[in-house]
């Protein structure tokens, strides 16, 4: 009796050790993967603390002799116009995101709740097709038209793009509004709500998650975009991303790499913060986009 018990106990200790070892292996793998993926970001932060001459030594020095925190103050020197362009980008991204969220949610609502209308499914095919065809092929010919209308070098194109909504976000809102019960609409109609009133007072207040997802994704797109502002805007009103790419030079016009890197870190930081706060929404949006074809 005692023998079997101790035998069983020994067995379970062995099993425990085995699971311990197994989970140790898993954590080892996870930590290793994270380390490999994050080395570039670590190197970015280290370089942001170097002097430019330290970056330009050969063979390279891995760490700065003294971390140069002053780089972080330097970036905001008035000559580099970092803060003004940060505000402009904030304005542009907020304006565009607000408009896109408004019009996309309205269209998504129509596609989700007016399925009895014959043209609905055929038009929705166009929406899905437009998700697959990215904007770069239309950006260049659009530029010629906007230029003819004297709207380039200004934020107007983003205003019109926002008004028109984005196919992907229409898709996102449609999927979301599909899950609402039919009774909600019926009750609203009985209460005498207009179609727009039903959308505005019943559906929209219940769509906070989708609104957050859509707003954050749009905001991140404008903040991170390079090619569109590069083509459409001027040096004086371009977005922060375009600015940091070239602005940090010495008086002779040579690029200062480490100061640029510091600028890049500060430029990316708001996105990291938004990501940690709105992670749930962002990842949900990514999944929806990936499964759009299903």
């Amino acid at each position: 009796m005692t023998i079997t018990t101790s035998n069983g106990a020994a067995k379970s200790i062995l099993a425990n050790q085995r699971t311990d070892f197994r989970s140790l292996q898993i954590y080892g793998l996870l930590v290793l993967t994270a380390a490999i993926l994050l080395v570039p970001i670590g190197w970015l932060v280290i370089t942001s603390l170097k002097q430019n001459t330290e970056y330009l030594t050969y063979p390279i020095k891995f760490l700065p002799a003294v971390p140069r925190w002053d780089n972080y103050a330097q970036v905001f020197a008035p000559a580099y116009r970092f803060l003004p362009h940060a505000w402009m980008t904030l304005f542009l991204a907020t304006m565009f995101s607000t408009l896109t969220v408004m019009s996309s949610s309205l269209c998504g609502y129509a596609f989700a709740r007016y399925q009895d209308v014959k043209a609905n499914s055929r038009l929705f095919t166009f929406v899905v097709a437009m998700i697959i065809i990215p904007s770069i092929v239309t950006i260049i010919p659009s530029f010629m038209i906007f230029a003819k209308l004297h709207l380039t070098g200004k934020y107007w194109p983003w205003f019109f793009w926002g008004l028109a909504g984005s196919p992907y976000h229409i898709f996102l809102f449609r999927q979301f509004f599909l899950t609402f019960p039919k009774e909600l609409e019926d009750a609203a109609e009985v209460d005498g709500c207009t179609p727009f009133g039903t959308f505005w007072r019943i559906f929209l207040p219940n769509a906070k998650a989708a609104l957050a997802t859509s707003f954050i994704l749009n905001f991140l797109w404008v903040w991170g975009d390079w090619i569109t502002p590069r083509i459409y805007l001027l040096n004086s009103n371009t977005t922060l991303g375009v600015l940091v790419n070239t602005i940090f030079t010495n008086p002779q016009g040579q690029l200062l790499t480490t100061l640029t890197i510091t600028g890049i870190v500060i430029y990316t930081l708001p996105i990291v913060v938004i990501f940690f706060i709105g992670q749930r929404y962002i990842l949900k949006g990514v999944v929806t986009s990936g499964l759009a074809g299903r």
Partner: protein
Amino acid sequence: MGDQRTSRATVADNTSRSRRRRRTFFLLISPWLVGFVLLTVFPLAFGLWISLTNYDGLNLSHVGFVGLRNYANALQDANVQHSLGRTVVWTLLNLPTWLVLSLLLAVIANQKVKGIGLFRTLFYLPSIVPAVGLAWTWKIILEKNYGLLNAILSYIKSGTAIGWLADQAMYGVTTMAVWSGLGAGMIIFLAGLQSIPDELIDAAKVDGANKFQVFRHVVLPMLTPVIFFQLVLGLVSAFQQLQIPWVATTTGAILVPPRSVYLYMIGVYQQIFGGARFGYGMAILWLLILVIFLLTFLVFRTQKAWVYAEADGQQ
């Protein structure tokens, strides 16, 4: 009698109601519909018309119609052929690498252990770095003389100086593009992995399948719809890539990407904004659109052969 009248009234009521709903529907989607026509269809059609002319940005009042001459020239253009070839290499290098590594990362992130959420967040982090940040993050790693990679490689073979962003830019830029795309790929594959019912995997295990066999014969077939859609999206965007190679390889005095990553859209951009050859630029842009349509069509044709479809057709 009375019955008939009511039913007739209901029918009339219903048609007026459906007409009203139709009107409301079009009113609600009008922002998108108007935008779609004015900001997508019209520019593309305008571009198509321009591609048949000799428009150079200044002579809009007296443009000459040149028919298909721009297209004929494009097919003979060594520059176009080179950039198309580079784009094919870029796609063949990027797409499979990205798909395989994303799937691998998703499998790693699919472990059921405590704190896995934190690891997923860390794995996703590279994906949120915007294009300019991505380029600079890798510029200081891939730089020929002062970059981290060559410094580390010098321990193995001293004096290594590979131009990862110059003559070998195809590999350098591919690395950063894949790194940047892994997070999104992982999240999508993770959703796919989690939608596979546990019973299916357990049943296969009971039948004596080992881990690899379960993955190969149960998990992978179930993931093919996700893989297929990622393949289509990846193909379309790889053929239109411009931003990452451009920002990564140009700096200071280098204004145009090196020949090794001179992708098709870079050629289009150069024709239009570098040379103001609008007519010709639009012609090669439209050739690209045709190529993309053709490739997408071909990929869809292969769908039946390898993409798993559920028996009841519900997806």
